[in-house]
């Protein structure tokens, strides 16, 4: 990587002549693909602020006939449930990511110690879940009937907390980018094992922790499956489960077209409308969109899995 920057000055002339027509064709195709990726996301923003009537009459559009804040207002009317769900999602995201990063980096640090005989066994123990898996059904029955954790937030946190791949990424970073001499020196200066880890290794591990941590946080934020399987009370429902529930109630109304108009009217604001649904989607995906550009620079640096084995 450094080589490329090193002789940037000599390269300047050849870089100039590279800007031929081919570059513009390439740029055109890249732009097309970018639009393919970004336009659907843009549609969420537009539809959230589109007038409901405009959608039911003319369909979704990038250029709506009439704008409106009703969709967003409807979301705000969820009020308490939305706040609760935000709280739950933020809690499991922060707690899960912090806990996962701490225990995974401790594990990664331990198995990367030379002369630690048990580390061979621990490495194999770590690898096996990647090869063999109990599957959803067995997990569901064991977590609910044997651990008695039905409707417990633990089941939103623990299953995503330790993954083999993430430990391997952390271990690779410790092995390749943190000189062992530093740890040895700390020990000679009288620091204990724990102090060495927390004061020397952990701070140096930061780029890798940022990359892994952001991917974990996204996984927690986006997890609908565990919530759908295990969470039953409203007070514990994360945001993604709200989305799933909206879809379920739309489906219910569609499949029961004989629900009388008066009954529908009685349900009032509970009938999810297009614009308010999109506004909810916006509320759910918004925070990640905002946080993501700040973490992007760590991706390439921290997620190098080229040397996953060790």
């Amino acid at each position: 990587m450094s080589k490329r920057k090193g002789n940037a000055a000599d390269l300047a002339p050849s870089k100039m002549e590279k800007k031929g027509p081919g570059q513009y064709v390439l740029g055109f195709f890249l732009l097309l693909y970018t639009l393919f990726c970004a336009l659907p996301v843009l549609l969420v923003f537009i539809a959230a602020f589109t007038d409901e009537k405009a959608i039911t009459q003319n369909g979704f559009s990038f250029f709506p006939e009439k704008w409106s804040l009703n969709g967003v207002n409807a979301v705000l009317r969820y009020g308490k449930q939305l706040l609760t769900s935000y709280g739950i999602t933020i809690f499991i995201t922060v707690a899960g990511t912090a806990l996962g990063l701490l225990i995974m980096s401790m594990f990664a640090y331990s198995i990367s110690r030379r002369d630690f005989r048990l580390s061979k066994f621990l490495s194999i123990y770590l690898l096996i879940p990647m090869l063999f898996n109990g599957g959803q059904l067995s997990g569901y029955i064991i977590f609910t009937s044997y651990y008695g954790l039905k409707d417990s937030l633990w089941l939103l946190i623990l299953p995503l907390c330790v993954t083999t791949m993430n430990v391997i990424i952390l271990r690779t970073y410790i092995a390749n980018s943190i000189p062992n001499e530093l740890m040895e020196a700390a020990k000679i200066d009288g620091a204990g094992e724990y102090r060495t880890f927390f004061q020397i290794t952990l701070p140096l591990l930061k780029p890798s922790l940022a990359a892994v941590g952001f991917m974990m946080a996204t996984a927690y934020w986006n997890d609908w499956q565990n919530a759908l399987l295990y969470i039953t009370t409203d007070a514990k429902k994360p945001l993604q489960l709200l989305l799933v529930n909206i879809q379920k109630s739309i489906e219910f109304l569609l499949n029961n077209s004989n629900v009388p108009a008066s009954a529908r009217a009685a349900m009032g604001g509970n009938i999810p409308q297009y614009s308010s649904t999109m506004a909810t989607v916006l509320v759910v995906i918004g925070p990640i969109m905002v946080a993501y550009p700040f973490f992007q620079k760590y991706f390439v640096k921290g997620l190098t899995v080229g040397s996953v084995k060790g």
Partner: protein
Amino acid sequence: MKDFLRNTWKHRAHVVMALPAFLVLFFIMYVPMAGLVMAFKNFDFSKGIWGSPWAGLGNFKFLLASKATFINMTKNTLMYYVIFTALGTFLNVVLAIAIDQFVFKKAAKVMQTLMIIPVFISYAAVQFIVYAFISTDTGILNNALGMTTRFYSTPSMWPAILTIVKIWNSVGYGSVLYMSVLAGIDTELYEAAQIDGANKWQQIWHITLPALIPMITVMLLLSVGNIMRSDTGLFYQVTRNSGVLYPTTQVIDSYVLNAIFKSSNFGFTAATSFFQSVVGLLMMLFANGLVRKISPEDALF
């Protein structure tokens, strides 16, 4: 043995530090592995997995007896695995090379940022976006083309729809890994090739692609173990779990999820899960053995 114990005692701090993750893996990953024995049991909720009576191979016979469902979902699982892996890897590599070759670096950075965004949107949210595009009356596609295609009741459309959604979701992010490899290629190689008169395509073919091979191998190898598993959200949420679409959209994972919610057919489901786990394991061992033969340094273990 005594040496080993002494070594472990000397490293007791490391044992303590490894312990929390060890326990989480044990209770979350290892115990459910033992739960797979229910494939050989007549499962009864009140008696639990270990208390239920043995059924021998009864569940597997049941599996073969109702083979239409089983074959359909296995076929779909494999079909989507092959499409997603082949097309996905190809596009990841093409996109990584394209961005790397593009000389307007600032524009490339902005475009890449936008391309990665979809991976951060959960399928629970994605399904509403997909709906906005393909719903019958209000969908953008139908309106733009003046059609009234009923996508949600036309199974034959869904392999294409799901492939597009999957690519939209994952290719931008997938290319990042390959770009990190490209950034590491020594530029002098390209200069030397240029002096020797190689054009752009020859440079890509002879320098860029060979440099990517190890990463491609590792990524394929990692994915092979999941050959029987799918991106559940894609098949469960984006299709709105619609029964009409099952012929082309039901995969093993979404079947199992449905079975859990309906608390039905546990014997059949357990047998399917067992099959899924064992095939995954065998494929992984096979792929790793193969890589080990061809280029040992890229093997996973």
